[in-house]
Each structure stands twice: as C-alpha cells, then as structure tokens.
C-alpha cells in the first residue's frame, strides 16, 4: 500500500521520495522543537532521536499532559514544523514542503481525531464528513460520506448537527470525517477522554477496526494505561522524547 501511495505523492507534491523502509508509514529522525520564551531564551519541548510506524501499524503513545504530545502530533501532521530533523510520511519528507503543500498533504494523507471532536457546529454530520473531503482538491464524494456514516452506525443521524448528537455520536462522526480522504495515517489525540465510559469501548473498537479494515496506520495518544494495554506496541513519550527525560518536572507549554 505504501508503495502505491508514494507514486501519488511524487505527482501531487513534487518532492523526492526518500529512502524509507518499504513498509513504513511514519519516520521521525532527530526531530527537535523549542519555543521562544518571553525573555528571548529557547525552551526545548521535543527532542526525538528516532521514531517510526510501520505500514498499517497501530501504536499507543502514552504520556502525561505537558509531555510534548500535542507538539509531536502537530509536527507529524505538518501543522507545525520542527526546528531540525526529518518527518517522513509515506516516503514524503513533509518538513521540506512549503506550507500550502503540507496542508494539502495533510488533507489527503492524514486523518485527525481530536479529544474534543472538533466538529463544526453549523454543519450536519454528513456535511462535517464532506468538509473533510473539501480541502483535498478532489470532488467531495457524497456516496463515500454516507457510506462512512453507515460504517460508524450513524446513517440515520446524517442530517443532525453536532448539538443534536450525543458525545459518543459526535466522536463517531469525527472518526468518519478522519477517514474521508482514505488517509494512510490516523492521528487520534485522546479520542475517548471526553466520552462517557459506556462509549469509550465502542469508540476504541471502532477506530481500531476501521484502521485495520482500511489498512491505515494508527498513532493513538492516551494517558490511560487501560486503553494502551490493548495495543501490541506501546510507546511511552518520555522514552522517545529526550526533553521529557531531562526536564520532566520543569513543565511544558505544549
């Protein structure tokens, strides 16, 4: 699957593919990120020597708040760029892309599920899924949007707005939206943290099942050992982030 997508990336982004293992979705190499303090000094937040995700691999990333996980997700998704290092997704070194190309890449290749769902209140469930397709450059596929809603069990709630849906249902819509453009990587940022206990199980099962079915790599951030324990591979953020190892007690703005 990875190989097939690489060709597409060459055409749409025009960047050279880098030598990445044939079955690798994500590679972070010597990625560093720091923020400027009001006094002008730099506050390091992230220092990852090496982190990678195989094709369609599902990984739980465990870390406490303030460990740099949001910064890490922003860098992987191209919302932020690292100060140094490489971020390679599907063979494309996205940190070298100009911002507009990174946005496009994100729209086409990366699905995002947020802790607080982040559905747009003005749009129905169906339209929220369509919106996920609207920024990738292609035509919004209404049939696929309905099919995705059906897969997350909300085909009968398609016309409802987020305010008319339960939190569990809202997160299901968010999962459908994240899959809209057939991404190769799904980033889930504590997707069950805002969902009631009864729904946590459902949401987790749903995310893992659709990723397996669609051959999508999953990086799921959680601070719940219970949720992490279901994954074959569990990565502790402080194991890969050397900043956390040295300044764990110092606080982190991200």
């Amino acid at each position: 699957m990875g190989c097939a997508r690489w060709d597409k990336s060459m055409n749409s982004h025009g960047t050279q593919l880098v030598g990445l293992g044939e079955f690798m979705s994500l590679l972070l190499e010597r990625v560093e990120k720091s923020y400027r303090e009001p006094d002008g000094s730099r506050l390091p937040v992230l220092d990852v020597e090496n982190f990678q995700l195989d094709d369609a691999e599902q990984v739980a990333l465990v870390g406490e708040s303030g460990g740099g996980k949001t910064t890490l997700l922003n860098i992987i998704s191209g919302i932020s760029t690292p100060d140094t290092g490489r971020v390679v997704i599907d063979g494309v070194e996205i940190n070298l892309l100009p911002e507009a190309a990174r946005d496009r890449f994100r729209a086409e290749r990366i699905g995002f599920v947020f802790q607080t769902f982040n559905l747009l209140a003005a749009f129905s469930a169906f339209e929220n899924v369509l919106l996920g397709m609207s920024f990738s450059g292609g035509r919004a596929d209404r049939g696929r949007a309905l099919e995705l809603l059906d897969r997350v069990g909300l085909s009968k709630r398609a016309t409802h707005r987020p305010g008319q849906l339960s939190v569990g249902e809202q997160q299901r819509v968010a999962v459908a939206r994240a899959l809209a453009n057939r991404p190769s990587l799904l980033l889930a940022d504590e997707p069950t943290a805002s969902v009631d206990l009864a729904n946590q199980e459902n949401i987790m099962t749903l995310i893992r099942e659709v990723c397996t079915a669609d051959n999508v790599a999953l990086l799921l951030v959680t601070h719940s050992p219970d949720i992490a324990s279901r994954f074959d591979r569990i990565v502790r953020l402080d194991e890969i982030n050397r900043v956390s190892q040295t300044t764990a007690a110092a606080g982190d703005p991200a």
Partner: protein
Amino acid sequence: MNLLSIAYKSIKQRALSSSLTSLSVALGVMLMVAVLVIHGIIDRMFSQQTIGYELIVGRKGSGLQLVLNTVYRLKQPIENLPYLYYLELKNDPRVQDAVPFALGDFTKEGGFPIIGTVSDYFVLDYAPDSRFKIRGTGFRESFDAIIGSRVAKTNGWDVGSTFTLVHNSAESTHEHDEVFTVRGVMQATGTPNDKTVFIHLNGFYAIAGHDRPLHETLTKLKAFYTEGIPGHPELDQMDPESLRPKESDGHDGHHHGMEDWQKEVTAVLINCKRPPDWPADAASPQLGAFQAEKKRGFQAQAVNPIEPMRELMQDIVGNIRKVLVVMTGLIIIVSGISIFVSIYNSMSDRRREIAIMRALGAQRRTVFSIILAESLLLCVGGGFFGVLMGHGLVFAAAPYVAAQSGLLIDPFAFEPIELTVLPALIVLASLVGIIPGLTAYRTDVAKALAE
C-alpha cells in the same frame, strides 16, 4: 462542499446578525435604485429632444412656467394672449405651423387638464418620429373631445362617452353646463398627453363664462397692442367704459357668440418654415431671428420648449440627484461597514472553527476565501433584495406620485446604471472582507486548537 456553501453555512449559523446586516445593505440599495429609477424617468420625460414644435409663444412671464403648463400640463397657466395675436402668428410668412392652446379647465371626473386646441396638434410628432394614433373620428363638432389613454383608463371612458368640465381646478365647485362627447381615444404615448383631455377650440370658446366682460377684454387688448389693434381700427377708437354693463339694463356684459377680438389663447405652438433640403433634426434657419423678435416684444415671449427644462434639470434636479445618490451611496458604505463589524466580531468566536478547517487540510488562502465569500454573499444578497425592493418602492409610489404631481412613472422602469450596483457591491464586499479574511489567514492553528 465548495467555498460558497461553507460560507453560506457560517452565515446561516449567525442568522440574526447576518440578516440584519444584509438588510441594511438592501435598504441602502433600495433607496439608491428608487432614486435612480425615478430620476431617470423624470430626466427622460423632461429632456425630450424634440416634441413636435420648436417654440412656444405665450404671455411674457416665466418661460419655465409656460413650458410646464403647455408641455407638461403642470402648474396653473400664465396670463393669456389675444386670439388676434395667434392669427398674426399663423399668418406670419415664416411660420409653418401655429397651433393654439387654451388651458384652464379640468374634467369633473378625475380632474384631468383640458386643452382647447385644433386638429393640427394631432398631426405634429409628440416625440421624435412618433405620431399620435387616435381611435375614433377626432374633432368634427365644437363639443367633440379627444382623450389621452390614461384618462380613458382611469375614467373608463371610450368613444361616445360624455363629460362636463369644472373651471380652473378640480376642487372648484363651478361646473360648466356644456356636455362634451369623446370622439377619439389616443394610444398611450408615455407623455403628458396621456393624461390630457383635448377639446375643440370652438367648444372651449362656446363654454359660458370663457368670455370676459367686453369692457375688460377691450382694456386688456389695448394694453397688449399699445400701438394699435391689428385689423380692428374701430376698437382703437372705442372707450372700454362704454361697453361696461349698466346696472339698470340687467345685461351682464357678456356677449355670446364671440368675435375673434374677444377670444384668448394660453399659448401657441410654432414651427418655422424650413427649406425643402433642410435637415429634419436641425433648427429651422429662421427660428433664432423669430424667437429674438418675440423676445423684443414687451407683451409676449417665445421659448424653446426644451431649454428651460434642460436648465431646470441641470441646475436643480441634477444636483438633487447627485446629493441623493451620494447620500444613498453613503448608506450603502455604512451598511458595508456594519457587515465588516459583524464578520470581524465573529472572528474571535471562530478562531477554533478556522483552526479545525486548517487541521483538516484547508490552506490559508482557502479560509481567507471563505471569509471573503461570506462578505460577498451578505453584500450581493442584500443588494439583490435591495434592487427588488427599490423597484417595489417605485411600483408602490407610482400611483401616488402621479396623483400628487401628474408625473407618469412606469413602475417597471429599469435604469442601465443599476447594472453598476452589482460590481460596486462586489468591490465593497471585497474591501470589507479583507481584514476579517486576513485574520482567518493568520490564525495560529496549533494555538487555536489548544485553546
């Protein structure tokens, strides 16, 4: 989903403030359209290039008033001219057409102005290359009348209908006994002729009360012809006081079966003779000299029917229009600012919404375009309703304006300048959308998502 539908959804989300700001644009555009359309109608009506005759000769006084009551049937007529003077003009070797107008009465029903005239009037063009089209026989007898299309429609009159007149104004209680019969109905001309009733000049003179006491008439005639009454040396010798009715003989001083010297006309429409090869659209060569000669005279004036109106339009109406257009333009700009304020104020609430779209892959220029599209939808949508409402206003005002001023307004009139409203609104929308759009463009996604 395209950008416009995303923008439309956001507008719908803020339905109340969106519709209010859009309404303010609509009201501004409505006023501007109404001003433009009504002004366009007035402008066209009063600036016809030719109206079938080159000069109006009337009693010395306001040239504008002479034109207003002769051509537009507005205002009270000025003083009259002696009928003898009309005959002089008619027999002037330089004159091609001389058509007398006698004004002063109104129909009892509907209060339409009456003009006593002769059939020659209906042979003249009423507008460039436009001849009157009259259904019926036209003038045959003294008490025959030809009515304008609007008179026919409003009063429900047709060929064969009969009517009476009231003197001086529709409010007057003085009703004439004479009954006139409609012998011709004009097709609509879009000119004041549509709301005029023409009666045979002889019929006008036959109406009891349209002759003054003889001694008054002679006094006025002598005052007009200070150097002798042409063709009537016997009148020069006569003392007006000798014609004053004596209280004892019970005679009222009126003399039924009028002599020409007793008759009066309000105005005479003149075309001068022109050489056979003279261009049709050029003034006849003798016009200037003829007009100057009438001006020299102490008692009469000859005015170009176009000139006073053109001056009025340029000096007063044109400036009023400018002021109104500027004011309505300002209203639209203020509406634009209110759209800016509305969108700009919403931006702080929408930082997260914009950040979510960016996280889903929307580029900076995409979110900028969405905000700009919102501004466009509000401005252009409001403008579209404004144009409709403006024409609605004209439609609603047309009968009222007609009743108050006598101006006929086509409720479906369209002004080409209205076509500039849309591009102007697009420019306005772009201007007011830029700053909120840039705010969206600059949104810090990571920060807004973390909030």
